[in-house]
């Protein structure tokens, strides 16, 4: 699964630390999700979409291998 978290962060000029604070997780966890090492739960994905003001589908997309 690929994601556009880094792009969305850049649009808001947020660091990983800022995003972590907004959604209530650690910076390391944001990094793990952003680099695709961890697939977040629906709740966390929805929280991210909410703070970025976009839909979940626009942040997380399935790849052909998924």
């Amino acid at each position: 699964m690929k994601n556009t978290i880094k792009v969305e962060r850049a649009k808001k000029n947020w660091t990983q630390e800022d995003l972590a604070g907004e959604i209530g997780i650690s910076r390391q966890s944001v990094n793990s999700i952003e680099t695709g090492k961890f697939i977040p739960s629906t709740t966390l994905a929805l929280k991210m979409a909410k703070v970025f003001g976009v839909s979940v589908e626009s942040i997380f997309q399935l790849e052909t291998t998924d």
Partner: protein
Amino acid sequence: MERTKKNVNLNSIIYALVYGATYLPATLLLKYRVFGQPLSIIIAVIPIITFAIFILKFIKAFSVMDEVKQRVQLEAVVIGFSLTAMLIMLLFLLSLCDISDFGWFGYANLLGFCWIFYFVGWFISKKKYGV
């Protein structure tokens, strides 16, 4: 909220240290038979109580961790438990072959191996998720 999470995590670390601080002296006191049997039994039970408190604090800390950290802890415990179970199974099966002279695999050593396996699992899982 963030401070509460940190306090809960800190609590579990403090109780792990308290457990260590009661287990090691208790082992030494019991090994060298410093006290009579009734007091020795009480000394033997103390580390069990502190370990139980540590586990309760650990479960509480687990419940306030974010989902990535929960996954890391879960995998660490699964790896630690599995490796310990495999070691115990191996020792048991070897003992059935009348091979039971394992100097490094007494009860005390097995407990140490259990902790080592947990930390191996923790390290592997942390590397896997990059946290």
